[in-house]
């Protein structure tokens, strides 16, 4: 599974119906389980490994995993996006645990915790 939401860390963005991870995925792959108040990647085979979901989560609850067919588990790549300051820090940890840190310029744009959806007020349930 390319990205994984840690249910221990995800707080559902405080009851948000449109949390940032779900909004920022360009493929509409993340959904929120409202009963559990947690987000999860619903369509792993459609993930592009592009990481907007990981970078935008205020709780750093989303982990990036390479599909196992590409390499061993254990290596880690973790972005940290500070609230202020135009930079992003990446922690890169190899299989032996060696760590390299990259701090790279960027332009931080604030992302609201929730966002109104245009159109009809209620989501329609198409299940049968």
């Amino acid at each position, binding site marked *: 599974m390319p990205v994984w939401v840690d249910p221990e860390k995800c707080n559902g963005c405080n009851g948000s119906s449109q949390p940032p991870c779900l909004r920022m995925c360009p493929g509409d792959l993340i959904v929120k389980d409202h009963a559990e108040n947690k987000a999860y990647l619903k369509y792993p085979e459609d993930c592009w490994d592009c990481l*907007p979901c990981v970078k935008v989560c205020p709780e750093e609850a989303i982990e990036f995993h390479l599909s196992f067919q590409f390499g061993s588990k254990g290596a880690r790549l973790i972005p940290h996006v500070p609230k202020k300051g135009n930079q992003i820090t990446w922690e890169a940890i190899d299989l032996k645990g060696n760590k390299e840190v990259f701090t790279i310029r960027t332009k931080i*744009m604030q992302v609201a915790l929730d966002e109104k*959806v245009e159109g009809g007020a209620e989501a329609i349930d198409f299940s049968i």
Partner: protein
Amino acid sequence: MERKIIHTDFLIIGGGTAGCMAAVEMKERYPQCSVTIMEKAHIDRSGCLAGGMNAINAYLNKGETPESFVRYVRADSCGLVREDLVKSMSELFEYGVKKVEKWGLPILCDDDGNYIPRGRWNIKINGESLKPILAKAARSAGAKVYNWVTVTNLLTKEARVVGAVGFSLRNGTFYVVQAKATLIATGGAAGIYRPNNTGDASHKTWYSPYNTGAGYAMGIRAGAEMTSYEMRYVAIRTKDAIAPTGTIALGAKAPLVNSDGERFMVTRYADLGGDGAPTPYRAHGPVQEIKEGRGPIYLDTRGLSAEKVRDLKSAYLDMYPSQVLYWLANDIDPAREPVEVQTTEPYVVGGHCQAGYWVDKDRRTTLKGLYAAGDVAGGAPFKFVSGCWAEGIIAARAMGSDIEKMAPAEVEAEQVDAEEERAFKPLKGHAKLRHGISAVDFEARLQKIMEEYAGGVSTHYEMNEKMLTIARDRLAKLPGEVGQLVASDLHHLMKVHEVIDRIDVAQVLVEHLLFRKETRWPTYQSRTDFPNRDDAHWLKFVNSIRDPLTGEIEMITRPYEQIVPGDRYQAK
């Protein structure tokens, strides 16, 4: 289903690179006009730029001119391009780039404040946030944005495009947008061919898997003239991760080598420019090496300093972070081990090749009221982000000046009803049709045909008349089966429309491949029955128009016009 009707002056379908820039230009030049963007994802992180960018790949560095750019792109495209389009876009590179820098994009500069070139036409950026920057500019300029609206078709009245329809992925609202002028900017098409990777990595493609050719398909169905689909893009990318290689080849100056360590581009393609051979040959070279038993192919990064390797990793973190995790998870240090590369499944991308709408110099399509910019527009390869911005700007200016002459447009109620029916049928079918076909299964069928008979990876991208005729016959059955597609929710409804659109694109693509009886761009378009370039007969554009009523695809040709003098096969 709730129906929402929107009236707007300008409609932009697809809020990506080109769409966002067009919106800003429209609002700046025509502030009194209303601008509406319909985007299937969220404009903050949608399309190709979702992960970020690390370079602007089309820019006139010191000493270059629009003419030198045309000469380069023409030679890189094996002598056939729309020179008028390539030239007009290059004239606006600087305008677009300076704008985005003003909005906050960090561009790497030397001590004197000049942009740092990366190769002949590229400059380095820290573009991790390029997409949110563009989105903010579009919103601040006053464009009204509808996120999560998958546009399914154009609306036409008396051969004029008068808007578009789509549905909300969030609540199923059916949107009817009535517009005086419409810009299509939905990007190119991935997923026509079987992807390199399988399983939970099947979307680990280079081109955005969410650009599925919708914009092409809408135009094809409405009878717009299309050009150059046969020039498919086969990219050379890092093995497995499918990350762009320009970062290594240009950024770290690493050459291509085969398994014997031979710089085969230099030895075997010297007459074409060696490592600087036209892009199709830089995919063709590796494919031939592998075919002839000298694979795998690598970018030779051995001997890079630790600092250079760090720079390389930083650059990937700005654009394609999974490449860095791939190295970590495989214990690869590019300074010790060369980076293995492979060629991708073919894409239909007007920004790297020239597949797309046939447009005039102002990016007007052949349908009145419809304009095209970015990867969806044809004739002008080597676009990249800056060319997409330029085209968005050109189209916006044309739309503004045309709109004054345009009578108000009205949509036809019957057409809207029929489109609503078409859009939601797979959902309704779900309840009734127990043996319906899922988008995933349908896509597998389409990709199998394209892979095996229309020049996929496993046939070394090669094809002949027989194979293509089989592809044509097998594809011809698919539209008849579209009625059995079912969707269980709105996300799957989007996926159903994606596959419907891909079928329309694939059919046109195969007709183009059949029509061009020469090999102009090896590997992009390798005809084993016509293996050579044939300037005497084929120095022209292959175009198509699908009849909106009968569905018949008519093939036509358009002449090539040389604007910039010089040898068409020489970049200098």
